[in-house]
């Protein structure tokens, strides 16, 4: 037991570096994925039927395709089509695409939750459609969607573990490497699990706190 704890102490700095890589991946995926999600959300409730169908098909394919498939598609596909990208970049691209598809549905629900009378009020005040969208619907819609988006952020952080398969030195990859070197797979993988929990559990509490906070005064 004390031997395992000593090992854990030994490995922790390495795994912590991996946590930082995982957090970076998740952060960049959200940074690039959320705007994609917002555009898809607006497009899939567009008045133009062609735009709407196109967006809905994209979203359904993006949500229907497993994240690991998207990841490997980008990683093996981009070089084959003549683009040289690092593993890290392809990881960010793939996770951002997945983020875009999933968050578009979350954001669409948020935008739809904005009461219709507020749009009417904007029209009555003589605001243009564009201004209503910019100043009334989008800010409130995003606010409604925040708890669900935070829940999704946990999922995308967990999904960064998939990038082990394309050799990004994130948490799982580093733990596996330690395991391969020491044959103490169980010990190091449990430690990796604890590192994941150290991020996901407190963040989960934050999500339910936010849910209550926003729920109480948005009704």
């Amino acid at each position, binding site marked *: 037991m004390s031997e395992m704890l000593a090992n854990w102490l030994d490995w922790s700095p390495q795994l912590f570096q991996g946590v930082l890589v995982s957090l970076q991946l998740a952060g960049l995926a959200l940074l690039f994925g959320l705007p994609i999600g917002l555009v898809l959300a607006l497009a899939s409730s567009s008045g133009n039927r062609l735009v709407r169908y196109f967006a809905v098909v994209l979203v359904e394919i993006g949500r229907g395709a*497993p994240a690991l498939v998207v990841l490997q598609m980008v990683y093996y*596909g981009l070089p084959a089509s003549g683009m040289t990208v690092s593993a890290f970049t392809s990881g960010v691209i793939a996770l951002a695409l997945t983020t875009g598809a999933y968050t578009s549905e979350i954001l669409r629900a948020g935008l739809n939750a904005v009461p219709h009378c507020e749009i009417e009020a904007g029209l009555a005040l003589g605001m243009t459609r564009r201004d209503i969208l910019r100043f009334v619907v989008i800010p409130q819609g995003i606010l409604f969607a925040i708890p669900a988006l935070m829940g999704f952020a946990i999922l995308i952080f967990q999904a960064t*573990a998939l990038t082990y398969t394309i050799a990004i030195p994130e948490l799982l990859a580093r733990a596996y490497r330690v395991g391969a070197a020491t044959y103490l*797979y*169980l010990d190091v993988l449990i430690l990796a699990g604890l590192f*994941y929990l150290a991020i996901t559990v407190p963040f989960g509490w934050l999500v339910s706190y936010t849910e209550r906070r926003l729920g109480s005064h948005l009704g």
Partner: protein
Amino acid sequence: MIDLLVSLLRGVPATLLVTFGAFAVGAIAAVPLVLMRRSRWLLLSMPARIYIDVVRGIPPIVWLFIIFFGLGSGVIVLSSYQAAILGMGLVSTAYLAEIYRGGFLALSKGQREASTALGMTRLDTLRYILAPQVLRVSVPPMATFLVSLLKDTTVASTIGVRDVMMYASQQAQGGGGSFMPFIFAALLYIALSIPVVVLARAVDERLRSRGQAK
């Protein structure tokens, strides 16, 4: 083109085996778990809560690694299929227990009160009054979960399960890398999830109509 599709189709049985195996493990094991979680005794509800949070807080691929490489290095050696079904089953247990719990919360309190008033025992109330209704409201979220489980089983390829994902990456690596095997794989996964969605809707409608036609 056809060759590619045929080679991916070889992975369908493994994908379905792991998906339905894990779903069955989860659907059954979640029953005692949700009953523990709902218990008034902290000694029962606390462990269930911790189990659910711990299982859901760690990515599925890490669970598979813990079971296959971790336990496999000395404690108990499982085949990659057994490890995949066990690992994904573990994950399913936690998610399905929460779905069942949502079902219990959706029931009106009057159901339990009425059965108490009729002199039914707690076990009978659960068996004949609560459980069937919980199951009914749980069908749609269970189907949604089954579809996401189908996609999550792709991680089983990393521990050597010969599923659709495994054949897709083999094809891509063999062919010097391209988008095609993965586009086909994605379409195949979407196609596999369609029957689940259709079936769930049919089951839901049947249960609903039975509930109303008294």
